[in-house]
């Protein structure tokens, strides 16, 4: 379908669909299933396992769950976890925090968006996106 178009038109359409994807809110229910499948090997909402517990992570300072032995790389990240920052993290944690103990990458933007929507849904209301 793209073959018949001029390159600029195709590029514009791609850019528009990427922007639309970014603007579409994630689906927390799909995100819950994806979280369980893709993150559940190492993480739980309420207990520190291979990775730290996740309830309330959006809006929280990176590396701040008590009782979890973080890498210095994650502890050194300032600020808080925002949906945007989490999206960067899930694309490549070693790029955001070189030397981190997490290596898993999630290549699908839709999956990242849904997982982030789920994590937001289990984080304090103040950090949820206004509806």
């Amino acid at each position, binding site marked *: 379908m793209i073959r018949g178009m001029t390159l600029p038109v195709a590029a514009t359409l791609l850019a528009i669909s990427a922007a639309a994807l970014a603007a579409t809110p994630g689906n927390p229910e799909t995100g819950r299933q994806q979280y369980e499948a893709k993150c559940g090997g190492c993480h739980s909402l309420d207990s520190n396992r*291979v990775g730290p517990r996740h309830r309330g992570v959006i809006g929280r300072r990176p590396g701040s769950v008590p009782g979890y032995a973080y890498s210095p790389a994650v502890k050194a990240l300032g600020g808080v976890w925002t949906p945007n920052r989490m999206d960067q993290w899930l694309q490549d944690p*070693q790029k955001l925090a070189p*030397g981190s103990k997490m290596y898993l*990458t999630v290549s699908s933007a839709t999956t990242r968006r849904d997982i982030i929507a789920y994590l937001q849904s289990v984080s304090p209301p103040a950090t949820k996106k206004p509806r």
Partner: protein
Amino acid sequence: MTKSKNIESDNSRRGFLRQSGLAVAGVGLVAAVGAPADAAKRRRVARGGAQGDVGVMQGALALEHEGIAAYKIAGASGLLTPDVLKVALVFLGHHEGHREALASLIMKAGGNPVEPKTDAEYIKELDLGALKTQGDVVTLATRLEQGAANAYVGQIAAISDNSTAKLFAQLATDEAVHWAVLNGALGNAVPTPTFLFG
């Protein structure tokens, strides 16, 4: 028979503890991965082969330790019928094999293999006390195996050495088989979308 198998795996666990050196317990993970200031060095090492993969292998080993504990504790709970227990012990054996492979590669690459947590910690973290029926056990195992298969596939992109990548593919496919057997036992259908893991 069941009992002797349990004893066997206990022995191999002790063997592992001896082999990896209890004195270094707890130091391994952080030391192997390095501080952020070492990032450039870490990247250089990464290009040099399996040494750069120590961090990712340590996480995998921690995951296997958890799986081993879950199968052992659930296996000893008395909740499983002999047939199911037999299968659980086969899977336990696979996870112990994974542990040995990862620990020996980590040592070869100059790292100290991360130690398992205590059973009490695993019981708390996985809420194993809440397991009341065989169905509960199989459901938990299905979830953990799915998580492990996805974790392995999802980390391959971060691996620098081809032989480590192959090991992760082997780990992922073992866990995928475990998942498939357990998922079938629960009476669940195989999901329709392509790419069940990753």
